[in-house]
């Protein structure tokens, strides 16, 4: 039986690995050279944060699984990321809106996790929050630039906001796992992060001429391993090397 800390670490690690993988799909396809450098760099940050979380999850589990075993050695139902992280990239507007939603959430999450009673989580948070500040700035600038831009960029950003709105609420979900950990001061209580997220998003969305999304309805299931159709395709690519060459090392 997995402990709450292991499960929570795995969820957070999966969020970062899966979104990092999605961003890496832009490599060579971004609309301009600067973004072709920016998106893989942000992907690297996310995957680096995932590594630290997987490594720690493996230690907590104590079953001898390392970061690679956890990242590549599970079936689809074993991944417990939030669904927003696996949503298909769509166009550049949708990728940037998703990034802004997630980065602002993580900004609040890491800020709270810095004071975790778990010293390893606190150390990972202290490092990640500084990186996340750049991710917020980068994505927020694009949301504003496109939301308050040309007719086409505005239409695309509005479509992105509409498409992604029902995937946001899952980030703030609590269950027995998070309840047990936040009661002990180990893990930030997800619902408690929502007001901070709204406060941080408000000036961005105001400048982008976009409405605050309705967080009332949320697609859910990611934390139980129930995924969208796109997840299977994503994992087929992510797992390819380890399936073709099991135990491969560089």
């Amino acid at each position, binding site marked *: 039986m997995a402990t709450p800390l292991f499960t929570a670490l795995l969820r957070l690690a999966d969020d970062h690995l899966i979104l990092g993988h999605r961003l890496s799909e832009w490599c060579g396809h971004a609309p301009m050279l*600067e973004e072709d450098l920016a998106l893989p*760099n942000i992907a690297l940050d*996310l995957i*680096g944060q995932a*590594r630290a979380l997987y490594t720690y999850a493996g230690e907590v589990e104590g079953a001898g699984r390392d970061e690679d075993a956890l990242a590549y050695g599970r079936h689809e139902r074993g991944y417990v990321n939030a669904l927003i992280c696996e949503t298909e990239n769509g166009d550049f507007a949708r990728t940037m809106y998703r990034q802004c939603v997630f980065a602002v959430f993580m900004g609040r999450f890491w800020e709270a996790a810095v004071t975790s009673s778990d010293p390893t989580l606190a150390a990972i948070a202290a*490092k990640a929050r*500084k990186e996340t*500040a*750049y991710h917020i700035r980068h994505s927020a600038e694009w949301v504003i630039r496109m939301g308050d831009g040309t007719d086409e960029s505005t239409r695309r950003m509005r479509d992105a906001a509409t498409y992604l709105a029902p995937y946001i609420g899952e980030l703030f979900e609590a269950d027995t796992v998070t309840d047990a950990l936040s009661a002990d001061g180990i893990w930030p209580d997800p619902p408690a992060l929502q007001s901070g997220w709204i406060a941080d998003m408000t000036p961005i969305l105001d400048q982008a001429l976009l409405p605050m999304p309705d967080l009332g309805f949320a697609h859910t299931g990611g934390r139980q391993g129930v995924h969208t159709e796109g997840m299977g395709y994503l994992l087929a690519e992510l797992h390819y090397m380890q399936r073709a060459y099991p135990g491969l090392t560089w």
Partner: protein
Amino acid sequence: MVTDLTEARAWSAAASVLDPEVPALTVAELGILRSVSVEGDTATARLTPTYSGCPAVLAIELAVEAALREAGFDARIERVLSPAWTTDWITEDGREKLRAYGIAPPVKASGKAALFSEPTVACPRCGSSATTRVSEFGATACQAQYRCTACAEPFDYFKCL
């Protein structure tokens, strides 16, 4: 017996390793070599990663291990996460070397990356403050791309973290 001299020798061996991504700087000047201690024949170097996703972390650890072995020690590497690395740990020498290499050193006082605030970055070539940011992310995760409007040269800026 471990003498201060032995420890100093281990430190200077480890400290001489260059960062593979910014080879103008040693790991000591970059501030990622936190300490080196010697116990018996074993030298332990404590290193902290710059960025979580820095692909050079493993290469740097292996290079420090090799340098310690070459200096005659059994080498051990410890990865330290806390306290988190900050660009404020880049030494004065390191900052000067970055500038000479063509990379603008980080503006001091990290952690004040407030939304939309822009640091004033001086051009490493002509020293002018008339510079504009081209992109937040450059050739590596730790750099941003800038352009100098005085001498018209593009350059990399080592971001604050």
